[in-house]
């Protein structure tokens, strides 16, 4: 069905269509519309689900953990401080191998209070064992959320998935949205280690050194296996519903001398900059990074690379810039831009490309004299 929706509503609609048995809900700007919309779906009977209005994000993730291991599909949504408040349980969900799906509406962290887009919240969960995808459009927010359940619940994966969308610049903007009937694209929830009182087991008890180490390796092994599963699921989605996705979204990269790498809405903004640069004769392309974990292999050989980071690792550098450097050996021009919702236009991105200084780092709009 073709409609128009905000990024938040697209996520909520995908959750309706995925039919989770339990949704844990706690509000936080700019995510709130997701849990409000799901409450409306549940109240109207469009989604038959237990809606748990928890008292904190820590409890939101914990309630999902309890419900997921009890044997139902679960979903929650959060942002920024909410994500940080549940951090302990974010680790727990992955360690417990529970296929929970969570939308994270990317937002800056206080102090000072700032509710605008930034990726630091998601970056701070980098090593939790969650798979993380960043989306750039309303349609993609819907599609990625639906696919997230299938990827997470695949027995070769059994890891939670975080769907990241930029606060306000995607969560609150309206674009066209085509919803689908997932049908058997999403099979019934089946967790091989679900609680069974006929077969009583201890979950997560005291664990010796060797067993613990093996469990950690199992997470990494499944994360590696998830690369193939993600590709399978995205291919099946394309075959069934006609929209294709991959680890990156490439735009005019084929003959490009210089490639812009960014995530989320800045990655879409970069496409406009590419058209502008191409009209000036600059052979530029955009490679919007979709999957942050597992981090994809990137083919960038022989090109200049400009990385725009909407987050930073203090004392070390741009998170994506350093990841690209580590993965490819290429020294990118590292642009730190868009923190706290700072406006970054396609003209600015075109300037980053025109003025690129590979190997250097630039904080957009900040003079070192200040």
């Amino acid at each position, binding site marked *: 069905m073709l409609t128009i929706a905000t990024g938040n509503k697209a996520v909520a609609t995908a959750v309706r269509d995925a039919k989770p048995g*339990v949704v844990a809900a706690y509000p936080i700007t700019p995510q709130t519309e997701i849990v409000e919309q799901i409450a409306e779906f549940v109240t109207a009977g469009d989604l038959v689900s237990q809606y748990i209005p928890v008292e*904190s994000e820590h409890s939101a993730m*914990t*309630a999902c953990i*309890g*419900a997921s291991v009890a044997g*139902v599909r679960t979903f929650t949504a959060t942002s920024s401080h909410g994500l940080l408040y549940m951090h302990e349980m974010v680790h727990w969900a992955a360690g417990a191998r529970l296929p929970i799906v969570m939308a994270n509406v990317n937002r800056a962290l206080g102090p000072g209070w700032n509710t605008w887009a930034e990726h630091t919240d998601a970056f701070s969960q980098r090593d939790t064992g969650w798979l993380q995808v960043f989306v750039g459009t309303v349609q993609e927010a819907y599609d990625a959320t639906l696919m997230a359940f299938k990827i997470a619940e695949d027995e070769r994966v059994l890891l939670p998935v975080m769907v990241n969308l930029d606060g306000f610049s995607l969560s609150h903007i309206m674009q066209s949205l085509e919803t689908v009937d997932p049908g058997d694209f999403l099979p019934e929830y089946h967790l091989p280690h679900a609680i069974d009182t006929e077969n009583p087991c*201890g979950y997560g008890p005291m664990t010796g050194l060797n067993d613990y180490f093996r469990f950690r390796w199992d997470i990494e092994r499944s994360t590696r296996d998830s690369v193939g599963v993600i590709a399978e699921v995205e291919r099946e989605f394309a075959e069934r519903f006609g929209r294709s996705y991959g680890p990156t979204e490439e735009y005019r990269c084929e003959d490009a001398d210089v490639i812009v790498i960014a995530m989320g809405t800045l990655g879409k903004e970069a496409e406009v900059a590419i058209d502008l640069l191409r009209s000036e004769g600059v052979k530029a392309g955009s490679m919007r990074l979709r999957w942050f974990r597992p981090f994809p292999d990137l083919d960038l050989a022989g090109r200049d690379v400009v990385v725009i980071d909407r987050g930073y690792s203090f004392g070390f550098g741009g998170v994506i810039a350093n990841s690209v450097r580590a993965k490819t050996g290429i020294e990118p021009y590292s642009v730190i831009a868009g923190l706290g919702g700072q406006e970054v236009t396609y003209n600015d991105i075109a300037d980053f490309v025109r003025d690129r200084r590979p190997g250097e780092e630039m904080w957009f709009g900040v003079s070192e004299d200040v």
Partner: protein
Amino acid sequence: MSAIPKEEYLLKCTSACAGCSSSLCLRYVLKAAGPDSVLVVPACCTSVIQGIYPGTAMNVPVYNIAFAAAAACASGMSNAFETLGKETNVIVYAGDGGTVDIGIQALSGALERGTNFLYICYDNEAYGNTGMQRSGSTPLGARTTTTPDGKPTAKKDLDRIVEAHNPPYMATACSAYPLDLYKKVKKALSIPGPKFIHILAPCPPGWRYPTEKTVEIGKLAVRTGTWVLYEREYGKLAISGPSKAAMRRPAPLEDYIGAQGRFKNIKPEVIEEMRQGVEQNLQRFAREEAGVC
């Protein structure tokens, strides 16, 4: 006692300390609950007592969860079982630190939401698993490893906090009265909605008394009126048998205090303050029972 099932759900060879009363209680809790039950355990002594992977001393599924998270985990589980049409008992078995301190927010939320579960706090009045540091539930004057001179403030009144949520059933119990505990768990599990049982669980290494005195110390807590056994069904108070006598004529408080090393060298004025606390508490219960509150 003949009514108590012979089936064991807490098996032999646990890692509990000698004289551990919380594992004694758990044995009766599980006998009352039966096999269609799931235990949710936050970080506490029971995390250790159940044994080390891949072994388990429990004959029901046990879900271990982070310290602050037990009630929220049970909440999700209970709602999931409802979705699946299962009537499995969801029982939290948590220590006092995980209940009155770090876990109280999740507990309050789960109670307020009307979660269908039974939350049991076994209270050994300190962080036992980490070696007896004070908790909010440590009584006035008790020495712990973080209150070497005795705790300067009174025990947090957890039950009145829970009571403020108006659960359909709440009760206190003590390891020295297992039949009373068994009956209370049975009754709790027969009632839909949030249920709460607060068990006083004396701890030999923490309270510093000989292991064979565990039952005796529990009885002294009740006989001196320091611990009052009661239940509250839909708000209505009923004092339990063993505490009725104590309310009429409590045994001398010194019998209880003097039997425990954690109160060694306690100052007379602190004992006096404790006595006043016990008296006020007993009077409050007596007034409520008499309908004068």
